[in-house]
């Protein structure tokens, strides 16, 4: 296997982590939707926490993406 092919494979494997992140972000927003549906008046408080959780989870995706970019472009 030449290096370019191995790099492409490695980058592909690195972004498998996005599956977990997808599940995580889906969980966060499903919880956010159901909590707002139960208590619409809490929307403002819950929304900030939800966005914070989204950003923290999304960071994991970006770590994986960064590794993929590092493999591909360096």
């Amino acid at each position: 296997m030449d290096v370019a092919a191995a790099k492409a494979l490695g980058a592909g494997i690195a972004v498998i982590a996005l599956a977990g992140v997808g599940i995580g972000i889906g969980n966060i927003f499903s919880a956010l939707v159901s909590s707002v549906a139960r208590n619409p008046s809490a929307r403002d408080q819950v929304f900030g926490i939800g966005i914070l959780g989204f950003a923290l989870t999304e960071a994991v995706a970006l770590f994986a993406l960064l590794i993929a970019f590092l493999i591909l472009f360096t």
Partner: protein
Amino acid sequence: MAAGEPTIDALGQFKLHTVLGPIGRSVNFTQSNLLMVVSGAIILGLLYFGARPRAVVPGRLQAAAELMYDFIARLVSDQIGDEGRRFFPFVFTLFFFILFGNLLGLLPYTFTFTSHIAVTAALAILVIVLVTVVALRIHGLHFFSYFFPKGAPVLLSPIIVPVEIISYLSRPVSLSIRLFANMVAGHVMFEVFASFMVMMAGAGAIGYLGAVGPLALNVVLMGFELLVACLQAYVFAVLTCIYLHDAVHLH
């Protein structure tokens, strides 16, 4: 990949070079430093010209300045409590420095200084040193009880204490890498899709039509990056507040 085919140079945009001619070269004043100065000047200008009228019914600029102040004041008092008022200037500076750094970086021909790990790591280390110093000043040596939560069985202490120490020390790492990775990933994505556009345009008339796809994607991405720029500054500020809360209250 055939030779001569255009390759994607995604990381080239993060290269530093000096600005302002020979003066900049002699003191190594790079475009990153220039953008830092510009973002600082914008914040100071906004606050200075915003706070000057002192009108009861605020104009646009004054409303913006009051909004900035109010946003951080509410964030700090929500997260840290009344003791948090002391940390308001620190969190305010941190938030708006990062926010304007992220936003200025989205303009064409500029540079995102938060896309360098050196900058974000410096900010994160600043935060963690401040948090530790504050905790030590308020609680003295009692601070070290932070690493052993109240009510935990003593038998488990050989496991809990190292885990708590590692999680405490990994805070600056995750704080800096989160901001840096977000900015780098966004800008690399811009570059990749822009390169697709150039490659497709090289394929002739059909390519010009096909290039509309990546162009549209880049437009959407720009909207998303505007959101991310604000969100990451907010996350950085919120996490700083949470760490300060831990330092002031110890769990």
